[in-house]
C-alpha cells in the first residue's frame, strides 16, 4: 500500500513532465524546424497584413452600418464579388466581434434530422443562396435561374466546424456565373481558376474533392484588383 502510494506520487509527477512537457516540446521543435508554415497555421499575408489561414474558412461578408441586430451581432451582407463559404453555426456576437466562421469559438449547429428548426434553417440558407444569384436588375446570373432543387447540399447545410475552408465543385460552378459577371471576367477564366484551387480526394479515394475558397478569392483579386 505505502509502496504503491510512493510510486504513484513519483510516477505521476515524472510522467507529467515527460508526456506533458517534454513530448509536446519535442514535437513543437521538430515541427517548427521541418514544417514551420504548417505548424503556424499556414498564414496568408497581403500587403503586410494577415488575411487568414489557408485551411480555415472565413466569411466573405462585409458589415453594413454600425447597428447591431438583436441576435447576430452586426448586420452582414455577402460581398458578391467573392465566392461565399458554407453556412456556419458559429458567429455569436460575444466572440471575436461577431464574425461568422469564428475560428476561436467553433461549434456544430447540432440541428437534428427530424427537427422543424432544421428545416427552417436549411430553408433560410437555400433562400439566401438563391438571393445571391439575383443581379441588381432582378435577372439570375445562373442560366435559367436557380431553384431549390438545384442548390447543392453543402450550400444549404451548415458545416461541422463552422470554418469549413472548402465548398463543393458544384457549389463553386454555380457561384462562378455571379462572380464572373460582377467582376466582368469571362466565365471560362473563373472556371479554370476553380479547377486550379480544387483539392482532390486524399490518395484519390478518401473524402471528397473541394474548392479552397480563400485561395480562389485571393487569385481573383490578383486578377482584377480587390476592394
Amino acid at each position, binding site marked *: *500500500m505505502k*509502496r*504503491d*502510494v510512493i*510510486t504513484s506520487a513519483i510516477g*505521476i509527477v*515524472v*510522467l507529467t513532465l515527460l*508526456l*506533458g512537457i517534454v513530448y*509536446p516540446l519535442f*514535437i*513543437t521543435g521538430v515541427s*517548427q524546424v521541418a*514544417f514551420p508554415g*504548417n*505548424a503556424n*497555421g499556414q498564414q496568408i499575408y497581403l500587403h503586410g497584413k*494577415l488575411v*487568414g*489561414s489557408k485551411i*480555415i474558412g472565413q*466569411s*466573405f461578408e*462585409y458589415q453594413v452600418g454600425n447597428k447591431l441586430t438583436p441576435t447576430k451581432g452586426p448586420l452582414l451582407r455577402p460581398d458578391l464579388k467573392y465566392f461565399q463559404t458554407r453556412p456556419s453555426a458559429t458567429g455569436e456576437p*460575444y*466572440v471575436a*466581434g461577431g464574425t461568422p466562421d*469564428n*475560428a*476561436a*469559438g467553433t461549434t*456544430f449547429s*447540432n440541428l*437534428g*434530422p*427530424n*427537427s*422543424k*428548426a432544421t*428545416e427552417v434553417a*436549411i430553408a433560410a440558407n*437555400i433562400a439566401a443562396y438563391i438571393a445571391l444569384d439575383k443581379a441588381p436588375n432582378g435577372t439570375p446570373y445562373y442560366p435559367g435561374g436557380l431553384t*431549390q432543387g438545384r442548390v*447543392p*447540399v453543402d450550400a444549404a*447545410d451548415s*458545416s*461541422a466546424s463552422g*470554418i*469549413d475552408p*472548402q465548398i*463543393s*465543385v*458544384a*457549389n463553386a460552378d454555380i457561384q462562378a456565373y455571379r462572380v464572373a459577371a460582377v467582376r466582368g471576367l469571362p466565365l471560362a477564366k473563373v472556371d479554370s481558376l476553380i479547377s486550379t484551387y480544387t483539392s*482532390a480526394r486524399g490518395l484519390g479515394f*478518401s*473524402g471528397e*474533392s473541394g474548392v479552397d475558397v480563400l485561395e480562389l478569392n485571393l487569385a481573383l483579386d490578383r486578377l482584377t484588383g480587390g476592394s
Partner: protein
Amino acid sequence: MTFAGWLTLFLFVGLLTALALPFGSYMAAVYTGERTILDPLFGGPERWLYKILRVNPEHGQDWKAYAKSLIIFSLAGWLMLYFILRTQTLWDFTGLNPMHFHSAPWNVTFNTTSSFLTNTNWQYYGGETTMSYFSQMAGLTVQNWLSAGVGIVVAVALIRGIIGRSGRSIGNFWQDMIRTILYVLAPLSVLTAIVLVFQGSIQNFSSYLTAHTLSGLTQSIAMGPVASQEAIKMIGTNGGGFFNVNSAHPFENPTAFTNFFEMLIVLLIPAALVFMYGKMSGNRRQGYSIYTTMMIMFLGACIVAYIAEAHGSPAQHAAGLHTGVIPGSTGGNMEGKEQRSGIAGSAIFDVVTTVTSCGAVNSAIESFTGIGGAVPFANLSASEVIFGGVGTGLYSILEYVLLAVFLGGLMVGRTPEYLGKKIEAREIKLVSLGILITPLTALFCTALATASSAGRASISSAAATGPQGFSETFYAYLSQANNNGSAFAGYGGFVQPNAGNVGSHGITFADLLGGFDMLFARYAPILFALGIAGALAGKRVSPAGLGTMRTDNGTFVVLLIGVIVLVGALTFFPALLLGPVVQGLTGHLY
C-alpha cells in the same frame, strides 16, 4: 453513394488488417519480455524509470495487488489533473495561457477530470474557449497517454490469466504501464504527430491570431500545440478534441488524407491487440475468430451508416433540397459535415470512433439521420466490444467469449472449457457482472436524468420537443458509461456566456452524474476483468479432447455475434425505440 465511398471502406479494412497483424506480433513481444527492435532505444529509459519509481519489474503481482496499484495510480492521476485544471491561472508564468483563460468551475472540472482519467474524454467545455495550453499539455495530454495505458495493461493482465500455466501472478502493473508507454504509445504518437503537421495540423504556442479578412471583417484564429495532443488522442482511443468541434476542425484534421489516416490509427492498437492475443495464447486462430467477429459487425455498421447519410434527412427534403449525387457534389446529409471528409468519410469515421471508445468526431452526430444516428447508439449498446477502446475492447470481448463458451457448453451439456481451463460458477458470475454493469449504469443515469427537471435542463432548446431530447440525454449517459465521449452535442453541462469563462457556470446535476457514470463504469469492469484474470490464473489446463467446443472456427463466430447482439438488444431495445428508431422511421418533423 459513390464508388470512391465504398472503395474507402474496403481499402480501409484491408490496410488496417495488413498493419495490425505485424503490430500485434510486435506487441506480443513487448508483453512477453522478448527483445524488440526498439530495445536499444528505450531499454535505457525503461531501466531509469524503474529506478526512480522504485519498481522491481521482476516482482509478479496477483490480481489484487495488480488492481491496488492500478487504483492508487489512477487516484493520483485524478488529483493531479483536477489540481492542474483548477489552478489554470497559476501557471500563467509559463507563458502557456496567452488568452488568460480562467479555470472552469469545480463541477465542470470534476466532470472533465473524471472524463480524461477514464479514457472517455467527454467534453462539456470548448477547448479553445476554456483551456490554457498548459492545461491541454500537462493536464489533458498526460491522461490521454495514461488512460490508454491503463486500458491496455488490463487486457494484457486478463490474457495472462487466461493463458497462465503456473501460479497466481498476472504480471507487474508498473512494468506493463512503462513498457506500454515507451514501446507502444511513444513511437506511434511521435510518428503520427509529425505526419499530422506535415499535412497541416498546427503545433505552436503563439496567442490567437487576428486576421483582417478580404471583405473587411476581423477573424480570430485559435492556435496551440494541437498535433501532439491529436496524435495520442487518436492512438489511445481517447477522443477529446483540442478544439470544441474536435476532428472536424481543419487544424486537427486538415485534409481528406488525414481523415483516412486518423481512422487507421484509431483502430490500429485495438485490432493489433486481438492478433496479439492469438499469438500469446499459442493459437493464432483464437485471435482470427475474434477479429472476424468484430470485423463483421464493424462492416455492418459502416454500410448502414453510409447508406443512411447518403440518403439525406427528412428536414432537408422538407426544405426542398435535392440530396442525390449530382456532378460536383455527392449530395446526402451534409448538415454538420465537412466538405473534405464528405459523406463516406464522415459515416465511416463515426463508426470507427464509436465502435472504439475513441469518441472523436469529424461531424455532428446529433445531425446524423435517424438511422445514421442509431448506428453509434447500437455500437455503444454493444458495450464497445467491436474493437472497442485500447485494451477495454479486448478485455470486454473476452468476457463475451467466456459467456458464449458457457452458453455453448450448456447447449451441448458439457462442462464449458476455454483454452483448456474450466469455466465455473465463480468466473461466470464475474463475467455476468462485468458485462452488465456498464449497461445498467447507463440506463440508471438516463432514467434519473430524464425523470428530473435538473436533468432535463441540459437538453438543447432545439431538441426540447420530440424524441431528439430523449436521444440527447440517453446518448450522453450511454457514451459516458461506455467511456466513449462522443456526444449529441446539444446536451449541455456548462453555460459559458463568453470565452475565458468569466461569468460561466456548470450544470451541477449533469456534471456530477456524468462524472460518476464514467468513473463507476470504468473501474468496476476493470476490477471484474482483473478478478476473472485472478480466478483463471491458478487453474490447471486440461488437454483438449473430442468433446471440447472449438473457439476458433466459424460456428463460434456466429455464436459470439449472437451473444453480443442478444445482450445488447435485450438491454437497450426499449430505450432505443424511444429515441433514434422513432426518428429513423418517420418523416415527421418535431
